[in-house]
């Protein structure tokens, strides 16, 4: 319905092709091609790609909220991390007696800090379906409660941003506490396997990447579908003219709430896919800085385009990988300059740039 570049049918098809291509190509390049082949992918590249894909999903989630509903959450890292913790807890339970203390009931960090029994909120995480449910529910319920309170009182704009930032900050402090029972600063790590598959095996890694690519693709399609309905039109409308939408008789708060909850759940899924691929989840993910970085991915790619957000995440993550290896000192300068330049000169992001050129 809107005229943003994200709706270009070509881009849409190319995006689908990209994710499908990735899902097909990576297992072949990593598992089948000999290591010497110029087209072969190392395990390092596979895990890197997997990480980028998760970040792209996270950016997609934020773009749905910011680009379409006009709500900039500076706490989206929190939903990502909560999804990640839910997955991490499942993976911790999968370790079973293979921990260093060989304790069947408690994760290692609980053993050496003298926990006598598993806290109640860890119950159920032995079960994969339950953990997956929590991946969706925990971020979703938090977003529901937070959003219900916020939107009911018409917290918008920068206030919403500042308060979401305060939320992720509070969660960070909370998860740093060892007494919370989530491993404190060290977080959850040293995972062994997922659904019985060894996480350190190349085949598992490739499978995870394929699942991730397909999940990102599915989420993208879901967002597009959603935005093409009257619901999507209302959401976009309230971004531009919230007052008008309200005076047309729409309950603005419930629309925002639905988008916020959905976006939080997508972020949770991104976190859940991220954790087994990078091998650790810790409270650092709640850092306000991380959440601001997500916004910059979206802004760089072009907000309100879905494709742009994912592209932005990919590009910046790749630049980070490159710079932190080659010019460590330059990384923060580059990131800072990117924030500045994009907001000043590229308000519509990379896709906006491309579109301007494309249309002469």
């Amino acid at each position, binding site marked *: 319905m809107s005229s943003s570049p994200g709706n270009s049918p070509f881009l849409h098809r190319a995006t689908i092709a990209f994710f499908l291509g990735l899902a097909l190509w990576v297992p072949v390049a990593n598992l089948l091609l000999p290591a010497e082949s110029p087209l072969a992918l190392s395990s390092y590249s596979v895990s890197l790609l997997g990480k980028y894909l998760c970040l792209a999903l996270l950016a997609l989630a934020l773009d749905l909220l910011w680009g379409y509903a006009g709500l*900039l959450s500076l706490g989206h890292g929190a939903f990502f991390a909560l999804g990640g913790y839910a997955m991490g807890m499942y993976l911790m339970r999968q370790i079973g007696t293979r921990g260093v203390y060989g304790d069947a009931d408690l994760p290692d960090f609980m053993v050496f800090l003298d926990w006598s029994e598993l806290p109640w909120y860890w119950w159920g995480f032995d079960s994969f379906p339950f953990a997956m449910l929590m991946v969706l529910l925990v971020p979703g319920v938090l977003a529901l409660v*937070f959003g219900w*309170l*916020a939107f*009911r*009182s*018409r*917290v918008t*704009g*920068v*206030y919403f*941003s*500042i*308060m979401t*930032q*305060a*939320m992720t*900050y*509070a969660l960070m*402090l*909370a998860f*740093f*506490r060892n007494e919370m029972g989530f491993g404190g600063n060290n977080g959850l790590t040293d995972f062994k396997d997922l659904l019985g598959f060894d996480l350190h095996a190349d085949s598992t890694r490739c499978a995870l990447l394929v699942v991730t690519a397909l999940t990102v693709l599915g989420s993208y399609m879901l967002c597009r579908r959603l935005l093409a309905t009257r619901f999507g039109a209302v959401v976009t409308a309230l971004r531009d*003219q*919230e*007052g*008008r939408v309200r005076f047309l008789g729409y309950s603005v708060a419930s629309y925002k709430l639905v988008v916020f909850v959905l976006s939080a759940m997508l972020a949770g899924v991104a976190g859940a896919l991220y954790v087994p691929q990078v091998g650790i989840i810790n409270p650092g993910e709640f850092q*306000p800085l991380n959440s*601001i970085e997500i*916004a*910059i991915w979206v*802004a760089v790619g072009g907000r309100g385009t879905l494709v742009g957000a994912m592209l932005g995440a990919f590009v910046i993550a790749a630049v980070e990988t490159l710079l932190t290896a080659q010019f460590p*000192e330059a990384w*923060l*300068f580059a*990131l*800072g*300059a*990117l*924030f*500045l330049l*994009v*907001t*000043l000169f590229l*308000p519509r992001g990379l896709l906006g740039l491309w579109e301007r050129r494309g249309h002469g």
Partner: protein
Amino acid sequence: MFGTVAAYPRWSWWMSLGLFLAVSLGGWTRVTAQTVETSPSIPSLRELVNRLPEAQDEEARRALLMHIAAGGDAATERVFAALERGALYVDRRSRTVVEGSRKGSRYLLTDVLTGEALGEAGRRDVRRIPVDNRLRAELRTVQALGALEARDPTVRQAAISTLLGSSDPEVHKAFERRRGVEPEAALRSSLDVALAIFALGGHDPKAFSAALNTLEGRSEENVRTALRQFSARSDVLESQQVRAQRLLERAENRLRWLARLEALFFGLSLGSVLLLSAVGLAITFGVMGVINMAHGELIMLGAYTTWALQQLLPTQPGIALLLAIPTAFFVAGGVGLALERGVIRFLYGRPLETLLATFGISLILQQLVRSLFSPLNRSVSSPEWLAGAWEIVPGLALTYNRLAILGFSLLVFAALLSLMKYTRFGLQVRAVAQNRAMARALGVRSQRVDALTFALGSGVAGIAGVALTQLTNVGPNLGQAYIIDSFLVVVFGGVGNLWGTLVAAFSLGIANKALEPMVGAVLAKILLLIALILFLQRRPQGLFPRRGRQEEQG
């Protein structure tokens, strides 16, 4: 696996020395009293000092230090001061004992007796004469015993306080002697307390009751310890023990009350820090509506300015600190001005973009400082007049630096408030904030007002940085610690309302300090954040909302 500690080679002789010194103090003070009048004997003192490294066994060293102590003149003081600071070295080339101070990888040597410069030495040329806490404590006792006889009553008072906890019979004797001749009434009563403590620890039952009378209403630590020990004794009358118990309880009750007052002060102090760091934001965010995520880095710049000025004036940390206040204002204000002209003015009316752009600036400033000054923290020293605490009554002492910052924050606040309220500039700022088009029509140069307002807010952040150097690290991460709290303070107070910022800062400070003893520092902060979020979700306009006909699309 590490088992038992078998030997303590380095400190054991000092311990014995300390004991010995303490036992011999009585004799020593009499000696000083006599030698003060006689002329100093520098050559023999130098000989004695030079013998320090030779004296290998404990006995010899003991005797040696006693000899040095017997000098009792200015040069002896120098030797003791240098020894206490760990600044006495053996120059291995000349086998003499010298005072040294490290300068880079070299040592500057001076004559410990005369202070005359002796040139430089390398790291391998000198060996430090060891010193530890026990020796320091004993040296301090020795010096305090001497100071009991000093002319200046404040010096005598300090000496009494230093010696108060001692159970040494020689100290007891010194106190008794001084009580007999002390002309100042206030000091006499301090001495009475000191003597009463000794009396409670003694074996004269007749003295107990008088001592308890003297200690009535006192709550000093040493008094309480004496009372506690007395009431646990088995060889005294039960009635007296009950009385001591009651005195102790009363003293402890008093302390509990004082602790509450103290917590209130802590809260005010925390509030003043929040106020200082947020008040600049109250202007840039509250009045102008600009989300400046680089605000924390402007605070950091103020702190680095203080450090730089102290580097320029290494001997005058206090003056450097005072100079830093205007300098930091202009440095941070200048950076703020550049930011406004270079970036922010292109983003007016797009607060979220401003947020992202200024966040980029904050990253750049952080890394810039890291690259220019290294990632290590910088050391900013506190001037004498900010050190220590003002003891209002025993048990309630307010630290000077916190008091100064509290006063300073209120001063800055008052200055800002009057600037906004009573000056032409303030009027223009408010006019532009309320209705830009109208203000322009009336001849206000709104661009200039924007730039200056932003510079003002940034300058105030710089000033906050100066104050923070007295409390915390000066490093690249300094700003990060304050940015979120600052925004919350401004929003909580009600955007655009300076008074709201004041009330918000102090109420958050006090609430935090009230919670902290109950739930611990970590949980206190979390609970406060949650409460704040919930409050703002009910009342997004904060404590003091700006009420008016809302913008049409609101």
